[in-house]
């Protein structure tokens, strides 16, 4: 029951929440001393409806800030602006800010080349500090992340699937351990419950592993540009998938029940230990694309803000409960099938 509520809640909110505002890009490619005109493009911003409070700044390494004149607001997300730059600047890096009352400050960090400037350390500050407005606006929405943007919603689906797989595989692992222990050796012709539990749980785990791979692949296409990338976590997930497929092939190829229970339990224990090493230990040592590694935007405590949390935690809970529920159903089906076989 709780499972359905949590899942429903997270499903609705993962799509329903609007995205927070963010800065998408600026059209300028090269800046020269004097007037520079460019188009500032935001995402989910309110340039038009909040025209009165709109201000655009160009910051040069944050020490010098230049206020830009707004020439025209094309749409809610686009504004044509022009900025006057002196011929001495402190560095060649530029950052762009747009302030409105509704959205707070949105920022774009675009590589913009420059030409004809004299680089002077500590060049004079022309304008006052950027008036960065409070970014936590009253509206409730997912925070804006560059590149990921709307696909942040996948966080509520992709990540809990892996958590669920871990939980279900742990159930399978424990059941396999118990299937091997001496006091649980059952006489022939009766069902080894622990083996049944282990295989039912592994089946559900494999299901979630497949789902996780698919959602991950779609997300990777969006954020990293390819369906498959050479990332340790991806490769590890693939190996886990192969290992559990091998587990079921092993089960199918052993006709004797008692022997099947023993062999598959042994393989399952081996596979689980390798899985923990593969997905929890090895990715921490290697470079990869997943959040929190080699200069990638991480979903750290800073990024996972309250709006994401409020959906993410119920989603995890819901998925884990769903996984457990599927496991119990799968277990009962398998048990009935076995009993049926014995009767007929």
């Amino acid at each position, binding site marked *: 029951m709780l499972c359905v509520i949590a899942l429903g809640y997270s499903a609705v909110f993962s799509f329903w929440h609007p995205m927070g505002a963010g800065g998408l890009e600026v059209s300028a490619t090269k800046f020269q001393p004097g007037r520079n005109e460019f188009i500032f493009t935001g995402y989910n911003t309110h340039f038009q409806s909040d025209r009165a409070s709109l201000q655009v700044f160009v910051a040069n390494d944050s020490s010098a800030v230049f206020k830009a004149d707004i020439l025209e607001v094309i749409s809610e997300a686009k504004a044509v602006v022009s900025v006057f730059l002196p011929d001495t600047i402190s560095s060649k890096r530029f950052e762009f800010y747009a302030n409105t009352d509704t959205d707070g400050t949105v920022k774009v960090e675009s590589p913009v080349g420059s030409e004809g400037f004299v680089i002077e350390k500590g060049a004079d500050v022309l304008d006052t500090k950027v008036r960065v407005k409070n970014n936590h606006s009253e509206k409730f929405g997912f925070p804006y992340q560059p590149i990921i943007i709307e696909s942040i919603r996948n966080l509520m689906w992709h990540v809990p699937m892996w958590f669920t797989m871990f939980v279900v595989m742990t159930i399978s692992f424990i059941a396999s351990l118990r299937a091997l222990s001496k006091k649980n050796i059952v006489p022939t012709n009766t069902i080894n419950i622990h083996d049944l539990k282990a295989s039912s749980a592994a089946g559900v785990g494999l299901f979630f592993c497949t789902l996780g791979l698919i959602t991950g692949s779609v997300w990777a296409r969006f954020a990293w540009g390819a369906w498959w990338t050479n990332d340790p976590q991806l490769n590890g997930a693939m190996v886990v998938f192969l290992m559990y497929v091998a587990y079921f092939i092993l089960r199918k190829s052993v006709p004797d029940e008692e022997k099947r229970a023993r*062999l598959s339990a042994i393989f399952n224990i081996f596979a689980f230990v390798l899985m923990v090493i593969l997905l929890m230990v090895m990715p921490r040592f290697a470079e990869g694309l997943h959040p929190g590694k080699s200069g990638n935007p991480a979903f750290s405590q800073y990024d996972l803000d309250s709006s994401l949390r409020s959906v993410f935690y119920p989603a995890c809970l819901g998925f884990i409960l769903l996984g457990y529920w599927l496991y119990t159903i799968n277990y009962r089906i398998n048990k009935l099938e076995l009993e049926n076989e014995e009767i007929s």
Partner: protein
Amino acid sequence: MRQKHALAGIAMYVLATVFVCYLSLENIETPKVWGAMLWLTGIFTAFNTMQKAFMNEGSGTVIYLYTLVNPKQIILSKAVYNAFLVAVLNLVSVFFFVLFFGTAAISGADLSQFLIGLLLGSTGLGLALTFVAGLAYKSGTGAGLVAILGFPIIIPLLITMVRYTAFALEGMSFSQNSLNLLVLLVLNIVSLVLAYVLFPYLWRD
């Protein structure tokens, strides 16, 4: 594996594989490819050897071992022997690689670092595959299952070995490569411990 003809067969397999690599690639220009091809040869040799790790024992020998020896001793002796065997075979394949492809691509290699990796990778392959071969043997379905069960299990090892070897052949300093070496070592130990603990359950009938 105590028969001479079987060993000669495996050595011949190594030679043929390296020769096929040579025919299809002709020359190797980067240390990365050199290392990767070496390990591809290595894993196929290891699979070919390990498939027979238990199969070649006649049923009489198995019963004899079963009644006389503790299963832990069996797995330990088999694992040590097979790890040693794979290491020797990989050294042979390195020899053939040098013979066919020359050492131009790996002139900057750190030889001792490379050899340590070769040794650890080989023992890892030997240990993990001995265990899998035992499992396949007990399932009674023949050698085909070794490849199905073995491949997913050795992929982590393979990834680490290839990366480590590429670094070693490019001549990177040891400190940059020590993490890969650590992972190799951990995988070796995990394979050995799991095989040692689980094999008695496998062996009893």
